[in-house]
């Protein structure tokens, strides 16, 4: 029997899963849409991964990361639950030990991680505003009648990207509509949009951070060739995009699961496990906390959301 480790990264838009072995080889991987239901997405994901897993392998560790990490961690009984910043850094460092800067744009968040000698020295993550992230790009692709996957290729066709006011997503959209109505070609608008994502990122999370090569770009948006092109142009540096750049978080958490293994063997059979959440509002004080109770096989495993810590 060969040992392997599962890492699951449940983001706002997509859910990613990888299974790696002791030498960081990827044995199985999958990328599906979260569609607003992390529990179902993970059930689907695990089923696919299980079908792809060769016979003689056993899961010796499970890690979860991403915005639904806590919930899914309970569901899968993960041995490690970690934030996506750490997971992304660990994942990237596994394959690129010399990396200095990690740019990451996901569905709703964007972050920058600075690394020196293999350790994170500083990081920033967007606060208060999510303009120029993946969900904005995918909604704009939809409005222009394109698939998000085609978006980047379209941008590459343009020679003259239009300027788009991208400080705020809503105003960017009205600016975009305006540019389309006055007759700019589609590819110029798309290229302008990709460029605005880059500029917004550098002005927002990249502010005051010294970006040094080698630079790695990852997260869902790194699959967009247009954005990559403008990062290269604006930073005047080469940008490395790994073929698994969208899976780095999942890989990182799988590596962490291996480092923190407890000697247990995990089963990937989720069909006979029920997993429910019940939300209630607590009216005992004016905070009106929303309490969430988590049931696994009809047994209360955790509850969270209370400010006072009593419930």
């Amino acid at each position: 029997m060969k040992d392997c480790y599962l890492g699951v990264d449940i983001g706002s838009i997509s859910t990613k899963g990888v299974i790696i072995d002791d030498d960081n080889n990827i044995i199985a991987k999958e990328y599906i849409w979260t569609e607003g239901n992390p529990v179902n997405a993970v059930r689907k994901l695990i089923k696919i991964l299980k079908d792809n897993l060769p016979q003689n392998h056993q899961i010796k560790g499970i890690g979860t990361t991403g915005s639904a990490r806590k919930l899914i961690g309970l569901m899968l009984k993960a041995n490690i639950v970690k934030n996506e910043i750490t997971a992304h850094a660990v994942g990237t460092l596994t394959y690129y030990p010399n990396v200095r800067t990690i740019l990451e744009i996901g569905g709703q968040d964007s972050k920058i991680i600075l690394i020196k000698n293999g350790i994170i020295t500083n990081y920033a993550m967007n606060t208060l505003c999510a303009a120029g992230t993946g969900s904005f790009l995918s909604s704009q692709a939809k409005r222009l009648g394109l698939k998000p996957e085609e978006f980047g290729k379209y941008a590459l066709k343009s020679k003259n990207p239009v300027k788009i006011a991208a400080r705020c997503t809503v105003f960017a959209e009205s600016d975009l509509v305006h540019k389309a109505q006055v007759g700019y070609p589609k590819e110029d608008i798309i290229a302008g949009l990709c460029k605005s994502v880059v500029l917004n990122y550098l002005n927002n999370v990249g502010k005051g951070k010294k970006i040094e090569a080698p630079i790695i770009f990852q997260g869902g948006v790194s699959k967009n060739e247009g954005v990559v092109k403008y990062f290269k142009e604006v930073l005047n540096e080469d940008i490395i995009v790994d073929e698994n750049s969208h899976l780095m978080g999942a890989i990182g958490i799988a590596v962490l699961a291996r480092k923190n293994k407890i000697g247990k063997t995990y089963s990937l059979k989720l069909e006979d496990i029920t997993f429910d959440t019940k939300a209630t509002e607590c009216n005992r004080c004016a905070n009106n906390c929303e309490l969430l109770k988590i049931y696994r096989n009809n047994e209360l495993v955790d509850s969270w959301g209370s400010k006072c810590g009593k419930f």
Partner: protein
Amino acid sequence: MTKISFPIMGDYHIPANYLLKNVLNAEIISPPMVTAKTIEIGSKYSPEFVCTPFKYTLGTMIESIEKGADTLIQMGGGCRYGYYAELQEKILKDLGYDIKLINLVTKGKTSIKRIYRLIKQIDPKFSKLKAIYYGFITIKMVKYMDNIDEYIRENIGFEIEEGSFEYLKEKCLRDFSKVKNYKELKKLYKKYIKQFTKIQIHKPDNCLKIGIIGELYTIMEPFSNYFLEKELAKNKLEIKRFTNVNYLLFEKRKTIKHYLKYAGEYIKYQMGADAADNIARTKYLCEEGYDGIIHIKSAFCTPEIGAMGVINKIANQYEIPVLFFSFDANTSETGVKTRLEAFYDMLEMRKRK
């Protein structure tokens, strides 16, 4: 009889209550604790882009009025805080509340004469002597509370029995609020300091040390920073914080001159509120070997926005990571936790190498 109240901030309502209770012949309406409802009310009636403490304090004022208060106290400071009282009075009057607002600071100055006149109107029997005596006890109480807090911050992350510091602090504050004279207060302080140092902790010599700097209200009112210190303490680290009421009222005047000299290569003059202080503190934390700095402010706090660039520069020079937080009325709590967790992971990874 006049029913008097004031905006709440951290635990400082205890000395404030104590002072008012002992010197004024008026009914004291203790402000309710800050909750989600406070900020909801506050945001509803505040200008949208005003700094968040305005919203919190307006919220507590309205909640106090609903509890029966008819006279409110507000202060001022060296930034937009200096306009809080006037604007809040206007907003409250527009809302139809018939209240009186005592502004302790006008045009950046505290005029004892003016305050005395205002107080005489509320309480004609007001005695200056009593005010001086109880004022002295209150000042001491604030100083003692801040000293105790400092000790707690350094050690709470390492307590063996969870909650032992918090439990003792609650007990201590309850006793403080009942003291009759200075001698009793001093005795209590000595007793509690002894008890605090007796609490069992397991603190390694090379533990992680973090400095918290930033805008004063957000630092001092735990609700408004999403209980940042409590969250941090879970991670076994030592916390250093400079800003407290004792500093603002009594030490700042002396310290600022020293600060400006100390960080002279970065700042030449004050930038309003605590911006210059925070720049000097950044240098101090870097030089003293702290592992990381957390800078917190309310959204739209102008002096701190000015300071952030310089803080970034200093931290880059010393290669110390800084985490910036801007808290608004609708910040997501999960987001704060994620960033703190990542920050802690990073510091630990750096330390291990």
